[in-house]
């Protein structure tokens, strides 16, 4: 029998649950809901839960996926309701299904990104952002534990698949971007850091990132 997946939302107070803590939270929620899931083989068996694309701390999302193996205690139909009663605020199971595309087929992520400026700089920010995206290349430094120098260099431009919307309103600039998901993918925080240091006259006081959708190579929803 194949494994199962849940599609879930992570928002509100749950934005602040880290990836590792989320795994524990999910394992405990399965137990609370009376659902038994497949354990890994080997000397130290542990419950198998896997998330193809971890969500950075502080991001919200409408399209998180977790893979597990349903053994007992629920069906794919009853599981969402059972789990939703056992989860902390802000995590909501939207769907549960058998199978799913291989993790490596997850190709793009659609992000809604909000930048808040101290003053009404959104228009200016929008122009700067568009100009930046029009460049041939834009290399930023990215923190890396592996690299000797403590950072690596990435060119952001090829990792932005599309700029789908840019809306400026007073102090708030809203972007919808389609970013490469993996191998390599682009964390919008890296892009935002680069943007901010490139335009030091813009005073960004807050940024929020929301994953709206994940897509496969054909830009169909990845499930």
């Amino acid at each position: 029998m194949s494994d199962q997946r849940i599609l879930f939302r992570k928002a509100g107070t749950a934005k602040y649950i880290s990836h590792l803590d989320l795994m524990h939270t999910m394992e405990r929620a399965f137990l609370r809901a009376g659902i038994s899931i497949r354990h890994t083989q080997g000397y130290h068996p542990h419950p198998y839960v896997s998330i193809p694309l971890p969500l950075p701390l502080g991001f919200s999302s409408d399209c998180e996926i977790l893979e597990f193996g349903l053994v007992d205690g629920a069906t794919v139909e009853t599981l969402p309701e059972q789990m939703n009663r056992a989860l902390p605020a802000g995590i909501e199971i939207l769907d549960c299904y058998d199978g799913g595309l291989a993790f490596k087929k997850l190709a793009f992520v659609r992000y809604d990104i909000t930048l808040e400026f101290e003053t009404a700089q959104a228009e200016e920010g929008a122009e700067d952002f568009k100009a930046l995206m029009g460049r041939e290349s834009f290399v930023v430094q990215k923190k890396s534990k592996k690299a000797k120098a403590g950072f690596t260099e990435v060119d952001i431009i090829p990792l932005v698949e599309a700029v789908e919307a840019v809306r400026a309103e007073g102090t708030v600039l809203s972007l919808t971007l389609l970013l490469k998901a993996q191998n390599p993918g682009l964390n919008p925080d890296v892009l935002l850091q680069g943007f901010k240091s490139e335009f030091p006259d813009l005073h960004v006081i807050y940024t929020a990132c929301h994953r709206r959708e994940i897509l496969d190579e054909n830009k169909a929803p990845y499930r």
Partner: protein
Amino acid sequence: MDHKLEKILARVQKPGRYVGGEYNAVVKDKAGVDCRFALCFPDTYEIGMSNLGMRILYGVMNETDGVWCERVFAPWGDMEDAMRREGLPLYALESGDPVKDFDFVGFSVGYELAYTNILNLLDLAGLPLRAADRPDLAPIVVAGGTAMYDPEPIAPFVDIVSLGEGEDVTLEMIRLYRRAKQEGWSKAEYLRQAARIPGLYIPSLYDVTYHDDGTVAAVTPRDGAPAVVTKRIVTDMNRSYYPVKTIVPSTEVTQDRVMLELFRGCIRGCRFCQAGYVYRPVRGRDYELLVKQGIEACRDSGYQDMTLMSLSSSDYPDLLPLCDGLLDYCQPRKISLALPSLRADNFSMRLMEKLQAGGRKSGLTFAPEAGSQRLRDAINKNVTEEDLLNSCRTAFEGGWSSVKLYFMLGLPTETDEDVLGIADLANKVYYTWKTYSTNRSRGIRITVSTSCFVPKSHTPFQWEAQNTMEEYLRKVTLLREHMRNKSITYNWHDPETSFLEAALSRGDRRLADVIETAWRNGAKFDSWSEYFSLRTWLDAFAACGLDPAFYASRERGKDEVLPWSMISDGVKTSYLWKEKETAYQGKITPDCKVKCTGCGASKLCEGGICHV
């Protein structure tokens, strides 16, 4: 969520601890609530959420209609800075509402080094620190917890001190408050009435006078307040509240597990141990009930670990059937069961083996507290060298290869010979391993830790002087010179926090100025090495014209009026004095099971008898 808060959270470490929303967090409809209680823990979220007392009170209050209890913890420095910068006042986790708008602001105070955090929280809430500067009925600031058996150092900051176990008295206090609110009482009127509820001490109703030498001359109650306030206890643990359904933090906390409370109190009467006296008498839960509660708590939380809690688990009469009952449920589900606070005897060791069957053999921990039999007798720590070495032998034969031994230096009557007894005992543990280990190739790790003894109120040693820091360090050096075995590691706690703890834990009301001064000069999180600065405290004492040594390192006479003399835990002072004398004779006192020695705590029980 508040947008200002979201902005702040983007920039602080571990933001998850500042938002609430955990599984089982209680959110009530404000329309149906007329009493809001901010239950504050003056330390981090991680530590506060590991406190069973907090969870019990939270549950008890939230089971009451019309009452909504929410949690508040001390924000770490980065969060505090951001809150102050952005003008975000202290809020409660469940609603996000400002703490200053609550009816009650209650502090759970387990240790004296949290005092500055209490002030910091009041200040972050935007409340005046001193009770006298808060004229309105709301909020009432109340404090409870083990440190409150000498509440005097923080007395001027709080309106009410709740003594002992809070399950019943908290609700009585709330009931009276609701009446006060309805009938429009003044705060003074409410406090006068509250003073009639057993277990509630109202500091503002007591005048304290001092002799020229700084000792207390008299503590005089006013307005009908009782001369002595006695702590409250839950008499029947089988009917008392246990939080089967409790909050499961979404982020990691210190005790991330089911905490099952076997019993309260302790039969042993170790003379240095405040908990052993102030929680008297011993009261247990039936094991069948515990098995049921443990299983339900696992089911509801999804926790895969459980700890059986008490002051001395080996003394639980039905420990075997309890463990069997729990193991039946836990083992097939791979839920681990931990049993700390075991005595060093063979029964306990066999039990450990059973609990850890198949699991990883983690380290063993024993607390002989003193190195020589003479001193162990003097402190009434009823463990013999033979017990200890036998337990080690069983452990080594079972494949254990790491032992931690905890001791105190500076216990009353201690001589250098007793100090060297620690090195001697550690060596004997080492030779036991050499003789009986089944797996010598893995080696052995023996860790010896010493801390500086802090004499506490309500114990037979409440009259004693603490060793000075110099004396403690001299003993540390002596011990170090005699621990040359490479398999033995010696760790000693620095004496600075113990010194402060000793000064604060037997203090009088004048210390409030010291605490406030230290806080104004930056003291907070004093139990954290990241923050603690003895200098700040010494300066604060000096600025207030007080000497910390007067409180920490001075022996008190039999007739001195102790600052906490109006506070009773049920144990007679004459009994404590007799115990002190018995200590100096090097004699032990039998435990409550062998023989009742008439400490006085039995009068707290129904029918006036302890059920040990």
